[in-house]
């Protein structure tokens, strides 16, 4: 690590992380906490109680105007016309060839206003892509500088956040949101997350973020709240089989290959990537994402080669120990006819084939 901290971008909570003794890393050009008390400890706090994440590095893009829906529906693969005001959904921002520019969360704020949350390291590219694709009068705004984002995740997330807001959180259904107040200041409160657990993601003004963070820590103390870093965020999302850009998805992978057919709505009006996806659907995909569990001793990790009967057949996109299951799990691409549960595979770990087996996903599903 020779990069100086000065060259990295910092969130409004950077000083808070340092004061809490977090271990900081360069995450796509951002100086971010990878862990505080330890990844397993933080992971378990989210599964059993509540955890607090700084996700202010994520980007926000706002689309406004009478033609906002038209633009959103042209650049993304899910059907935003189905969203009600106060509802959000997961979607793909696709190239014409069907690969991912990014994966995004689209929130419908009003009939003429959509709020899109995008990945940190993709935000500039995403904004440019949407601007270039805009053939309407819709106004596209790069709004990342106006928002800090904090995720409150876990079965005690609601009880924690409820102490700081008058908004009735129980009335916000999963993948819905309300604009209200947290700690006396404006906040967009969304029941969304990247952990496979119930919880909320709140968008607030950057200069209020540190105060709100500390108030959330106080509010969650009785539930054993823990600040959580990117390390736990990754183990949690992997157990829930949520895609990570640059791993499960990228510019050369389509939603059909990534097992994300549900975010592709072929029956809506034309959208970027539609033609390529229609062709791919017609011909059939050749590779597909599937989960695996290690059988032999070893951990299959990102980028490791996968063999079938001694020959290269795919690669691991994400892999590591699952703290909840006590197993070593992962996701990999395999030829489509083999991408089904029960397939014996070998993961090449330090030049040795180590036995694994494909399994159904998600690896972890919370009980509701």
């Amino acid at each position: 690590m020779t990069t100086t901290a000065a060259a990295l971008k910092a969130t409004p909570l950077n000083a808070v992380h340092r004061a809490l003794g977090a271990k900081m890393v360069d995450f796509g050009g951002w100086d971010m906490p990878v862990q505080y008390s330890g990844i397993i400890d933080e992971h378990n706090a989210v599964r059993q109680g509540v955890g607090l994440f700084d996700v202010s590095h994520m980007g926000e893009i706002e689309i406004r105007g009478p033609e906002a829906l038209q633009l959103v529906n042209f650049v993304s693969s899910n059907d935003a016309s189905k969203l009600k005001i106060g509802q959000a959904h997961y979607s793909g921002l696709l190239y014409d060839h069907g690969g991912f520019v990014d994966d995004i969360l689209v929130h419908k704020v009003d009939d003429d206003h959509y709020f899109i949350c995008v990945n940190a390291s993709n935000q500039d590219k995403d904004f440019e892509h949407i601007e270039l694709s805009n053939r309407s009068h819709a106004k596209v705004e790069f709004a990342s500088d106006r928002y800090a984002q904090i995720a409150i995740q876990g079965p005690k997330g609601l009880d924690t956040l409820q102490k700081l807001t008058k908004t009735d959180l129980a009335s916000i259904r999963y993948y819905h949101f309300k604009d209200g107040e947290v700690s006396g200041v404006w906040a967009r409160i969304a029941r969304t997350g990247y952990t496979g657990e119930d919880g909320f993601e709140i968008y607030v003004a950057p200069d209020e973020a540190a105060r709100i963070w500390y108030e959330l820590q106080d509010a969650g103390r009785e539930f054993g709240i823990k600040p959580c870093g990117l390390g736990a965020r990754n183990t949690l999302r992997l157990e829930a089989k949520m895609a990570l850009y640059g791993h499960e998805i990228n510019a050369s992978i389509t939603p059909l290959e990534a097992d994300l057919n549900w975010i592709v709505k072929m029956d809506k009006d034309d959208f970027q990537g539609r033609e390529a996806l229609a062709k791919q659907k017609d011909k059939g995909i050749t590779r597909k994402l599937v989960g695996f569990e290690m059988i032999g001793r070893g951990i299959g990790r990102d980028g490791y080669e996968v063999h079938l009967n001694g020959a290269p057949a795919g690669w691991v996109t994400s892999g590591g120990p699952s703290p909840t299951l006590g197993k070593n799990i992962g996701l990999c691409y395999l030829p489509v006819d083999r991408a089904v549960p029960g397939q014996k595979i070998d993961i090449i770990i330090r030049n040795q084939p180590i036995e694994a087996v494909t399994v159904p996903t998600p690896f972890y599903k919370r009980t509701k």
Partner: protein
Amino acid sequence: MTYPSDFKYTKEHEWVKAEDGIGVVGITDHAQKELGDIVYVDLPKVGSTVEKGKTLGSVESVKAVSDVYAPVSGEIVEVNELLTTAPEKLNDDPHGDAWLVKIRMSDPAELSALLGSTDYDKYVEAEAASH
């Protein structure tokens, strides 16, 4: 944490304690802290030979894989079986129970090129300051 004065250290954060031609090898407290929760330890077979500076095995935390380099050359005479079933011991007792391997040193003079505890301590501090 004070680093034992009867150990020798590498800049890659391994330690070796020499006794009667046998070098007990482990990773330092600094190394385990940097790695975080350790979940897997991969060690060589008894009877295999290792060369100073070459990969001896690896230690994996939840987040990452880290190679362990042999601080001295020689033959592996024992590996710590405790770490097969309880790799997390490396986080608790890296300078004691959670040693990795014992090496019958082929050239004990290699030890003199390694760092003493005071120098290693300074090295770790300087490395931390440069981050």
